């Protein structure tokens, strides 16, 4: 009797262990992981807060969107298909930049173009100022005070000539 009792206990323990192992095996066998969800969520933004990526956002709205990403991944949608679906439903704000290729290029390139223009203009102005300073110094007679004021420089030259 005792032997049967022991066997039954061992079988129950084994069954419990197997039951515990099933979800773990299921996770390894193709279920979507949080990392996979977050890889896509990282490229989107919270719908109700400003500039917070979806993967780190703690609102209920973000949790719901991450769930939606998980479901779509389970259904076999690709990353781009999921992003396109979200943009279609909620607009370009989902990804922070326009999906239209022209607008996207403009939004990404414009800040750099403006930055480059500002740097180029600043460099050009600096160079012009530097050259102007050099020419003025060369024009000024030895011993004469160097001045930025043309009028004053001419006056000084006339005074020198009179002496």
């Amino acid at each position, binding site marked *: 009797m005792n032997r049967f009792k022991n066997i039954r206990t061992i079988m129950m323990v084994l069954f419990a262990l197997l039951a515990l192992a099933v979800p773990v095996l299921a996770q390894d066998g193709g279920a979507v992981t949080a990392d996979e969800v977050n890889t896509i969520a990282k490229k989107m933004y919270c719908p109700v807060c400003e500039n917070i990526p979806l993967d780190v956002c703690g609102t209920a709205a973000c949790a719901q969107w991450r769930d939606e990403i998980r*479901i779509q991944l389970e259904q076999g949608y690709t990353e781009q298909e999921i992003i396109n679906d979200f943009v279609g*439903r909620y607009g370009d704000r989902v990804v922070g930049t326009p999906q239209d290729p022209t607008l996207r290029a403009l939004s990404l390139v414009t800040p750099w173009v*403006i930055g480059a223009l500002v740097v180029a203009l600043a460099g050009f*102005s600096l160079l012009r100022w530097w050259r102007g300073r050099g020419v003025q110094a060369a024009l000024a007679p030895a011993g004469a005070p160097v001045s930025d004021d043309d*009028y004053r420089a001419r006056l000084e030259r006339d005074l020198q000539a009179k002496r």
Partner: protein
Amino acid sequence: MTDVNLPFETDEPAPQRGFRLGLGSIVLLVGIVLVAVVFGIALLQRNQTQPTAGPAPDFTLTTLDGDTYRLADLKGQVVVINFWASWCGPCRVEAPALQKVWERYQNQGVTFLGVAYTDTERGAREFIAQYSQTYPNGLDLGTKISDLYNIQGVPETFIINQRGEVVEFIMQQISEAQLSAILDRVLATGV
């Protein structure tokens, strides 16, 4: 005493002393003005608020059942536009009140339109089923309707009179008594 020969007494032309801008400065100035304009527009957009009077922005809502409602076509009726989301706690609190008021007023020239803001279809359907909502509800695809009404969050409710004008804006969860009082007034006076 030295005889000073001043420039204006010479034959040499006097130097130009006016304020002149180089090409670089002009381009830089135009750039600054453009950036200021862009920032100004952004600031204006940020400061835009929900309409509280005047003509209600027109929109078309496709409900989760596939029906289409255009606000402009609902002139002659009082319209309650309720922005909500299934992830929003206060929206869950006000949902039973909205349904009750809808049941009471639906045959008195009142239409309810529920607009689900940044919601998933699954979440919205579960919400509607949970609170047994029978009035038209649809997803705000592309958040176009929310943008038109400049909503800042959910829930937000707009009451539109028979002439298509916004007469009430409620920026919090609405109660049954509050909504009923507003509808009674608008039905009676139109304002």
